[in-house]
């Protein structure tokens, strides 16, 4: 009986095929795959040492030796982009994991918990939403100092609250559906109902939210690194690279191109991936119109 309900791993993978079939999904998969690959490669090899400065090699244009040129300290831009991609991957995945745990907890407690618990979660979420991501990160940076771990924790909390806000409503809605009532009447326990009926129904919304959060986390890391509360100087990060170009923007306007383009492409890919996943997974809302709540993560 059980095998009838469960997707085998193969059919599950096949279910993801529509994601890559759309142009947006294929684009997202290509960009994110390339970023992941470059992050992995950069752990072992980059064309140049991303941190080795040289007074003789500053502001070189594109050449065979330096495909993307060098920056104001003579560091190879391509090598720095590659090294920075691992920071981006760490920020996106780390924030994603923390936000997923917090979001699911808040969603289950706030949507399905006992009455008092639901109210408490509602108030908590409303209060935490008043702490915008960057302010939360600055508050934690004021206490614990800055760095990537602080960025992960504060962004994870902030996006986890946003996900919890959406999941709470979804869980509450699904919990009142007839098939849940039927399952309960059939004698299924709470845990079994949650695992077999509620979570699968909330999963499309959850996956889309998560993808969106990871994209916005990359954006927020760029802002935080610019403000000096993100990656420390010795860690290569696209946000940091972008902020280092500000001083030279009037003399070397082209220098702002690469880090900004890299961030934009990755964030765009996460947004497109979210849309593609929604279209592929969501059987309830097939109209392609974004759900209002999903547009508001900040």
């Amino acid at each position, binding site marked *: 009986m059980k095998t009838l309900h469960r997707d085998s791993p193969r059919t599950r993978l096949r279910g993801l095929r529509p994601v890559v079939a759309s142009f947006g999904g294929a684009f997202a998969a290509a960009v994110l795959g390339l970023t992941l690959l470059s992050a992995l490669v950069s752990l072992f090899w980059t064309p140049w040492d991303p941190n080795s400065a040289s007074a003789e090699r500053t502001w070189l244009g594109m050449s065979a030796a330096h495909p993307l040129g060098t920056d104001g300290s003579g560091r190879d831009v391509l090598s720095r982009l590659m090294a920075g991609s691992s920071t981006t991957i760490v920020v996106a995945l780390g924030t994603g994991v923390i936000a997923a745990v917090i979001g699911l907890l808040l969603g289950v407690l706030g949507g399905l918990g006992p009455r008092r618990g639901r109210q408490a979660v509602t108030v*908590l979420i409303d209060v935490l939403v008043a*702490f915008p991501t960057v302010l939360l990160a*600055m508050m934690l940076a004021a206490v614990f100092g800055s760095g990537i771990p602080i960025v992960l924790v504060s962004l994870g909390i902030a996006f986890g609250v946003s996900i919890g806000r959406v999941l709470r409503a979804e869980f509450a809605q699904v919990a009142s559906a007839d098939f849940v009532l039927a399952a309960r009447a059939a004698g299924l326990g709470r845990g079994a109902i949650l695992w077999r009926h509620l979570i699968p129904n909330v999963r499309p919304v959850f996956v889309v939210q998560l993808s969106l959060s990871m994209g916005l986390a990359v954006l927020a890391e760029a802002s935080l690194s610019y403000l000096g509360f993100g990656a420390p100087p010795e860690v290569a990060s696209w946000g940091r690279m*972008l902020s280092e170009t500000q001083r030279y923007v009037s003399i070397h306007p082209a220098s*702002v191109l690469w880090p900004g383009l890299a961030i934009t492409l990755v964030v765009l890919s996460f947004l497109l991936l979210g849309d593609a996943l929604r279209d592929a997974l969501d059987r309830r809302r097939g109209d392609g119109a974004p759900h209002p709540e999903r547009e508001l993560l900040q």
Partner: protein
Amino acid sequence: MTRFLLARTGVLAVGWLLASLVIFGTLRLLPGDVAQVIGGTKASPERIAALRQQLGLDQPLLLQYTDWIGGVLRGDLGASVVTGTPILSELAEKAEVTIPLALLSLVIALAVAFPMGVFAAYRRGTGVGQTVSALGLVAAAIPAVWAGLLITIVGSTWLGWFPSQGFPREGWADPGRALRSLALPALTIGLGEGAVLFRFVRSATLSALDAEHVRTAMSQGSTRLRALLTQGLPGVGLSIVSILGLQAAALLVGAVVVEQLFGLPGLGSMLVSDVSTRDLPKVQSTLLVLTGFILVIGAVVDVVHRLIDPRLRDGAE
């Protein structure tokens, strides 16, 4: 309505109190001695002792908290430990930059997002409509710092229309100059927020086009455009109003980054420098004022939404 107002005010007060506990609690989690952190590692023991007394750190935590909140409720936010100036007067001074910046950004965001979102939804499925939608998506993915730098290159370096840095020392004495120095920063925040709002307007308009009252108008002989404008858009407008509260938070975050980028002496750049110098009492009070501000805007938006949305009026539920 009175009941709703009372209930909403209650939620607001509880929310603000909880926010104050979160801020106070987090800033007191500091590993080590607050006075030591503020004074720096080279501070003499006498200086540390004086700081402890000045900050009231020798008092029990609960008393420190009630002292702080009591002061805030009387309009006394305390003083900066770095400069010694009262926090309230400095906040008021910096707000003269940040609030006009946020309002200007909001106007730009709405002016971009509303017409383009409605257009993209109305022309859904056509090449133009899809191009506008794609542009909106790309714009939402651009980091604020990059957008600001690109806008500076175009608006200041190439065209030379607007200053790239700073705010006039005499403030709003010369409104034209002040506005000109806010132009590029407001454009940076406004386009970023506009991209987020655009996606929302587009999806709200798409659902409006499929809504029964719009389809009814069309079945009675109204054109699709006319039905959308007369029957659909009021609903779209209302759903935009209902999310403006959340936008207040986004505008504030935008201001933190953009003020730093354009060298504007506003609340955002003040907070950045206070966090860097570990002026904890000031960070604490500033965060309380900012979160309170966001919570109040959320409440005001809720009340306005209820006033203007006939579906939410008393008895209509």
